[in-house]
């Protein structure tokens, strides 16, 4: 070691000058100010609005009391749960399957990966347009193809039919977001070291045993993060449903976000809309809290 570098090592240990003490706070302050203005202040504003009613002045619990007996809200909540749980399950299983297919080396792997990711990258509004073109009962590609194959498509109006609409919008979600599950799970798979697999092979484990006892436990953090992020997004889903059905036909595809939107910007009942949005916020937080506890329990173990 030269004299110069040992001298600089020594000088590195000197205490931070005083003006450096304030610097980090100065760096962080603008960001905090913007976020307080755009997320904390709006939340406080929303609390205030949710305790006000259009018809009476002063403070009221009316908006929250109304929630429990509002059939539309309860059915929107039901649709949101069906939508989120079905889409989450299907997307997870398909995404895991695709990730396993592409985990081992294969010629053209990076091209397959890139092409499979396309739906996820599209603007949600464009996804809405794409699937209106697919589902359209006059010239949609799906019914056109079925008609050619001799199927009677009269009852198959997809997003326009009360029975099929919810399944149709879920299918669109699966189409768009399975790539996300696939991408995160593939990253998780590729981060697993080789040794446990080699050990399992030496033990003569079957493919299923290896998958069950090596892959799944080691993939758990990636699985939980993928499920957490998808769940958050599914509970707030708005864009594609709005473009595809606007919540209809009737209320067949109305989720909580759509009902809040309608209440606020069609009926201009901002108080009730705010009250509902708090229920959605609390639900989302409880669920994500659960996932984070699961993640931490594993990291601690």
């Amino acid at each position: 070691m030269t004299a110069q570098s040992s001298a600089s090592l020594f000088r590195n240990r000197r205490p931070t000058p005083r003006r450096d003490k304030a610097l980090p706070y100065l760096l962080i302050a603008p960001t905090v100010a913007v976020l307080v203005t755009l997320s904390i202040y709006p939340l406080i504003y929303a609390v205030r609005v949710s305790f006000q009613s259009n018809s009476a002045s002063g403070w009221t619990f009316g908006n929250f009391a109304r929630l429990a007996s509002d059939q539309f809200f309860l059915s929107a909540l039901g649709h949101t749960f069906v939508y989120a749980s079905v889409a989450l399950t299907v997307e997870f299983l398909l995404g895991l399957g695709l990730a396993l297919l592409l985990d081992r080396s294969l010629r053209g792997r990076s091209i397959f990966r890139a092409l499979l990711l396309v739906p996820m990258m599209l603007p949600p509004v464009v996804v809405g347009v794409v699937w209106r073109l697919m589902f359209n009962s006059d010239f949609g590609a799906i019914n056109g193809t079925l008609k050619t194959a001799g199927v009677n498509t009269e009852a198959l109006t997809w997003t326009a039919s009360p029975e099929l609409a919810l399944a149709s919008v879920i299918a669109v979600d699966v189409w768009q977001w399975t790539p996300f599950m696939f991408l995160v799970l593939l990253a998780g798979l590729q981060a697993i070291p080789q040794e446990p697999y080699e050990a399992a092979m030496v033990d003569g484990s079957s493919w299923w045993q290896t998958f069950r006892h090596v892959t799944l436990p080691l993939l758990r953090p990636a699985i939980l993060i993928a499920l957490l992020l998808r769940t958050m997004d599914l509970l707030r889903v708005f864009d594609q449903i709005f473009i595809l059905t606007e919540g209809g036909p009737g209320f067949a595809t109305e989720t909580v976000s759509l009902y809040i939107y309608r209440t606020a910007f069609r009926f201009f009942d901002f108080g009730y809309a705010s009250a509902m949005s708090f229920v959605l916020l609390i639900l989302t937080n409880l669920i994500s809290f659960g996932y984070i506890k699961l993640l931490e329990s594993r990291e601690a173990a």
Partner: protein
Amino acid sequence: MTSRALAKLIRYALLLIAVAFALVPVYWMITISLKSEADQLAVPPLWINFNPTLAHYEDAFFTRSFGGYMATSAIVSVISTACALVLGTLAAYGLARFKLYRATARHLGLWILSTRMFPPIVTIVPLYLMMRDWGLLNTVASLVIVYTGFNLPFVVWMMRGFFDELPREMEEAAMVDGDTRMGALRRVILPLVTPGLAATAVFCLIISWNEFLFAWVLTQTDEAMTLPVAIAGRVTQYKIEWGVMSAAGVVAMTPIVVFAMAVQRYLVRGLSLGAVKG
């Protein structure tokens, strides 16, 4: 055929089916944007053998004002991305490199992240009322402000991860050589995180370009209408001009797909806010 070759064949077959499912709907929209009205309605559907025409693109961009909506989208995306990058990178550096009072850095970081986790529908009512009070409804400024707020937590978390990966000795060495803290950040650290900064910028551009709900609620007039709002406004009308819509859709998605392909390496990290380092 050996069972190994058969397994490989099955893998290829399954992957091809998956790719077809992913791409055929998008391809269908592209064909609709290039077909005459008669070809659009043909049964059986014309997948390949139609006479391509650019009439719908001309219609969208010369007869209607889709060029203007696109310019609005671009302006809003670029300005809000720039604001978020400057503010967020400085904050990320402050959180990553300094010893703050007790656990402040950890708590602040988590709080910043949590603002990103709010469902947008929760803040839309108060933000709409605030913008109305400030007289900013139907302005580009309202969208720039809201998107900067959207992108900030994202920039802070991404950039903090990139800063954490660089050893502290880098700027300490520069400071020993007489550089100030900010000089070291500018001359030593920023050049090293440029790929990360670029990837973060691309993600912000994509998020702003794609955003629909806030743009739909905050702007309804032509002066501040973004591309997604213009497209959506035409979808939900009774008579839908599918060719124009599809042409606008193709134009809206093309830059995004190109950008996203460019940041593929960072995709996992960007989508999981740095939680998974793919």
